[in-house]
């Protein structure tokens, strides 16, 4: 994309301006996330850089907030809760979403558009409305302030992602493969697990990842539906900021960022590997 020799003066100016604008946008997107990382190593209980930190004096840095995090009973419980709720709702959302996508991709599915719309509505309806609705509904059926309640609510939020990613994968799926499997003697169940599942796995996995992340950083529904027993990491951070201003939050945030990067990298590597196996990309 080098500048061609015949570029006019205006084009030259735009060429460099464009680059600067792009750089600024990246900075705007990433700076708030990056800035947390050094701050989480702050030796002092403030959210600003101390003089020692700016001069790279080792005394300005410490691991005290990480220590704080891993010794605090309430933080540890919230981490545990987040994983319990995240993993359970991901498993549910992935199973239900995959089945729904498979059904919706059948050639003669009636009311496809309507059903698809209903399934992905939790993604579109403002969260606060879903949360308020769930609060009243779950209260009246005894699910409010229970783990199953929060898990079900997060399943509803995560399912649309799975439906969308798996449906997208199924668009390129060759249905004559299931016919071939059936012709070769495989029962529908056997064909599903040996042929369909391995081939749509990339879509299932990325859907599951989105569902997990959705549950993991969700706070609105947790505020409404969860009780003290079901406090998750975001909920704990929220009260952390409101009640006891402490850089422990930054330590949590840093760990979460690292975790997200690790997850995304893993998924991308898995996806590439499966595409290579499927022979979709040139070797």
């Amino acid at each position, binding site marked *: 994309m080098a500048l061609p020799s015949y570029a006019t003066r205006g084009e030259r100016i735009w060429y460099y301006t464009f680059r600067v604008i792009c750089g600024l946008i990246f900075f705007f997107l990433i700076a708030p996330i990056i800035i947390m990382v050094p701050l989480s190593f702050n030796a002092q209980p403030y959210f600003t850089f101390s003089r020692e930190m700016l001069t790279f004096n080792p005394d300005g840095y410490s691991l005290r907030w990480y220590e704080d995090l891993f010794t605090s009973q309430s933080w540890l419980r919230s981490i545990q809760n987040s994983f319990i709720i995240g993993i359970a709702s991901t498993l549910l959302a992935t199973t239900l979403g995959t089945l729904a996508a498979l059904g919706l991709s059948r050639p003669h599915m009636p009311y496809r558009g309507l059903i698809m719309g209903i399934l992905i509505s939790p993604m579109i309806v403002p969260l606060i409305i879903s949360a308020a609705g769930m609060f009243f509904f779950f209260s009246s059926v005894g699910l409010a302030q229970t783990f199953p309640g929060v898990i079900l609510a997060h399943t509803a939020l995560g399912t649309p992602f799975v439906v969308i990613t798996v449906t997208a994968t199924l668009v390129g799926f060759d249905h004559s493969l299931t*016919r*071939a499997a059936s*012709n070769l003697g495989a029962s529908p169940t056997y064909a599903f697990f040996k042929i369909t599942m391995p081939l749509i796995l990339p879509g299932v996995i990325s859907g599951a990842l989105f569902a997990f992340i959705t549950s993991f950083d969700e706070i609105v529904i947790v505020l409404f539906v969860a009780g003290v027993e079901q406090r998750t990491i975001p909920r704990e951070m929220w009260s952390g900021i409101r009640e006891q201003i402490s850089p422990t939050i930054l330590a949590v945030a840093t760990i979460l960022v690292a975790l997200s990067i690790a997850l995304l990298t893993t998924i991308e590597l898995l996806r590439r590997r499966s595409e290579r196996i499927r022979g979709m990309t040139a070797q």
Partner: protein
Amino acid sequence: MLKTADGVTEAGHVCFDNVQKSYDGETLVVKNLNLDIARGEFLTMLGPSGSGKTTCLMMLAGFESATFGEIRLDGQRIDNVAPHKRGIGMVFQNYALFPHMTVAENLAFPLRVRKMGQADVEKRVQRALDMVELSEFGSRMPAQLSGGQQQRVAVARALVFEPQLVLMDEPLGALDKNLREQMQYEIKHIHEQLGVTVVYVTHDQTEALTMSNRIAVFNDGKVQQLASPPDLYERPENAFVAAFIGENNKLMGKVEAIDGDTCKVVLDNGDKVTALKVNVDAVGDRTTLSLRPERVVIAPEGSADLDNVFEAEVRELIYLGDHIRTRVKVCGNDEFIVKVPNSSHSPDLARGAKVRIGWITQDCRALDA
């Protein structure tokens, strides 16, 4: 159709009995299909797209259900059996190889489904690979093979579990011309070697003529003619088959007189032709006369052994090496093609020349209009 006391066909390996198929409940895609396929036969269903041939194959494989009628395999009804319990091999149009499995795993799939022991599986897979001359390719992924190699794997996979019946749905459609011809011979040889019954679907008439024992020509949901390749080409029974198989000259007219197995036809321009009575019933019927271009000869003055001789005008000459495709105007038809062999005996023709052309009655078939 041979029938025993309980109404089961004895002779046929595969039997379509009065089968109908409709997708929307109104129009029939397949109309009253009756077809008996003998054990070990290579039968081709040939027809234009939308003629119902693929639907018939899909009903046989079990991916479509028959709206009415019965399909039997070895005398057993199979139209109400799930596809995975039919034990019929099939080669798909796009090969349908499992992309996440190696070639050997693809071939092993039907054997593993049948819970065959590991040693047996390996032996059979290797034998199948040898058969299609891909012995060294077992560990490759399908995407690493060329189109022709994938095609062979698909054939091997359809045969590896030793089905008695193999279906092929336009399997050579995606290959280039040379490869297609080569694969035609290979499939034919495999068929001869193994003696399985093959039902083959194609819209390519050359393919059908090369490979088949019998060809069922489909059009409009019906079998128009079921015959061996030479019969089909030389003795078409209706105007559709005559036009669909090979090149064909058409002359339209009306039956004037019937005399045994020949008839006199008055063409639309008034010329009179004697033709073989094939598919006309009565004097006064409209008829299409069908004549193969290679059966028409350019007749020098006074040649006596031709029953029909007419004055024609040369309109176009196309040099094709072994023959010269000559378009003439004769009997009011200026799309009339004559294939003039390229030999030293053949007359020198020029555009606009007046020539006499002729044919014998046996080669001119009076078909339905």
